[in-house]
């Protein structure tokens, strides 16, 4: 599959944006501008971007606790994301959700989720809606290798296979679930083989190669759009940092050489070098792209900082949909 240059540049820009957003979020969490817990996805950018590059706003995704990248790749406004992390009224959830519950329903991003595996059923529901709508839309759900050990993963795969739902299951296999290496969770550490039990295609791809991810996702999405049912894609990747942080980053517990190896497989230079080699990107253009990302992030912080905290009077709003009955 050959992608047009503008698309490739957008993918590069999105990966850079995710990386820089996460670097900034960690700093802002340490600085006390963000509260609670932050799970950065640095290093895994190629999965979100490679997959979401196949989607439109009428396709829907669900995400995980490590969800900032999925939001950005799906096209969310980083200003409203940042305001949400700051707990402000202009955040996506008016400050009620925070990092683990960012969502933008208008662009088909049905939410991050603090419960491992919990997004899969919701994505299957969105896929059912897409099937009933019959317009060729699809649903995608992102989840980690850890989610495969929750029953909801299997229930979602099974019903999607039986009903031929237009859905793509995207596993971000980053070799760890919190501090547990993958062998604590799995006897067979590959996830793709589970697809066979449900009679759906299951492939593993290099999750740090955005073009490989995009290729696999395109095949699966096309299949789904054509009414041929679900697919499972296992993207092998790695998170650069800790599982999560509160006010300070916890110490690294994984082997140093493992971390170093995976950092050497950084998906961003991999794409940018490729684009340069193909003459689609110059060092100056990359420089400019990075500067633009930087400016946007600064603007997002300013936006968030200028947004007020919700007032106590808003404690009970948003609980129930106001109009009790449709006519």
């Amino acid at each position, binding site marked *: 599959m050959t992608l047009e240059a503008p698309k490739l540049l957008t993918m590069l820009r999105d990966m850079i944006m995710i990386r820089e957003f996460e670097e900034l979020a960690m700093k802002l969490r340490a600085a006390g501008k963000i509260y609670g817990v932050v799970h950065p996805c640095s290093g895994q950018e190629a999965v979100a971007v490679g997959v979401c590059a196949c989607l439109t706003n009428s396709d829907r995704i669900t995400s995980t606790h490590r969800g900032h990248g999925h939001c950005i790749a799906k096209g969310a406004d980083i200003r409203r994301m940042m305001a949400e992390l700051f707990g402000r009224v202009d955040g996506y959830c008016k400050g009620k959700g925070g990092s683990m519950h960012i969502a933008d*329903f208008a662009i088909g991003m049905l939410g991050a989720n603090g419960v491992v595996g919990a997004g899969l059923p919701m994505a299957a529901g969105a896929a059912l809606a897409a099937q009933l709508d019959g317009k060729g839309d699809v649903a995608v759900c992102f989840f980690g290798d850890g989610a495969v050990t929750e*029953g909801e993963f299997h229930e979602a795969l099974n019903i999607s296979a039986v009903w031929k739902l237009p859905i793509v299951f995207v596993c971000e296999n980053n070799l760890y679930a919190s501090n547990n290496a993958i062998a604590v969770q799995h006897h067979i550490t590959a996830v793709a083989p589970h697809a066979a039990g449900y009679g759906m295609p299951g492939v593993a791809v290099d999750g740090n190669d955005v073009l490989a991810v995009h290729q696999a996702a395109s095949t699966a999405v096309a299949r789904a759009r054509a009414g041929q049912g679900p697919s499972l894609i296992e993207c092998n990747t790695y998170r650069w940092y800790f599982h999560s942080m509160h006010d300070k980053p916890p110490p690294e517990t994984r082997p140093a050489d493992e971390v170093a190896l995976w950092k050497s497989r950084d998906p961003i230079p991999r794409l940018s070098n490729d684009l340069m080699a193909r003459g689609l990107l110059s060092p100056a253009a990359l420089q400019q792209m990075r500067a633009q990302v930087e400016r946007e992030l600064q603007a997002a912080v300013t936006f968030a900082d200028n947004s007020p905290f919700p007032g106590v009077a808003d404690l009970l709003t948003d609980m129930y949909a106001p109009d*009790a009955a449709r006519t």
Partner: protein
Amino acid sequence: MREISFAKALDEAVAEEMRRDAKVITMGTDFTGDPIKEFGPDRVRFTPISESVMTGMGLGAAASGYRPIINWRSVTFCFVAMDQIINQASKVRYMFGGQADFPVTYRCGTGSGMGMAAQHSQSPHSLWMHIAGLKIILPSTPADAKGLLKSAIRDNNPVVSFECSRLNPITGPVPDGDHLVPLGVAEVKRAGTDVTVVALGYYVREALAVAEAFALEGISIEVVDPRTLVPLDVDTIHASVRKTGRLVVVDEAPPMCSAAAEIAALIAEDPASFRALKGPVQRVCAAAVPVPYSPPLEQASLPRRGDIVAAIRRVLAAG
């Protein structure tokens, strides 16, 4: 007015709402009636035995423009889906800042009295009441069953419909046409002046029978049926207790942290209602045991008419 069974009233509610709105779909491992005949396999979905994914799919489809009715069948089976209920359904609207509505209805059969033993005889509506964010209905008559379930399906929020299995065969009058009962409105099923009995589900019938007997003695019992548990029509309960000064609450669940506890607490904490009380309130609940199988034990575990009578006599004696 037509007399139809509680079960048929529920089936009619679903069928009418499916006719009215093409976005209403239904999912479950089985269905009463034969909805697939009228509405086809796209809108009536037989599912694998996967309540958790079913429950979450209800939310996902609701957020994507549909109005799913998820039928767990027995309430027993929804406990495998509690993450989707407690962590998701009850929280999604609020925690996403009201970005989307989730018009999904969850239906389940509840209750005991049929020799089905511990797992299949549960009445856990109080659990759900504690979880902020769900609306809850618990009808006691065919008319309420139909009217409340229709309102639930039209409501733009997750609503859980508790449908007492013992009521299924019981018949009663149901108005013709588009019969709706609004959520959040209690009904005084019998007016009275001496004692307020707030009864839930199956026990509304029992309370009415007891009230009838007391009437022969010249004692006037008011029977209040909340019908909706969330939002609870607190005003109607307060008004009744302020009038009678005496309260008995009857429910099929164990007492601890139950709807009966809540209603007692509401009265105990409200200055006007508290002042009106002539004596202690009384709860008539199930024994705090898993429901036993053997019929004599099962009957003993349930609130009996005699228990209701005794509680009423106690509140009458107290003042």
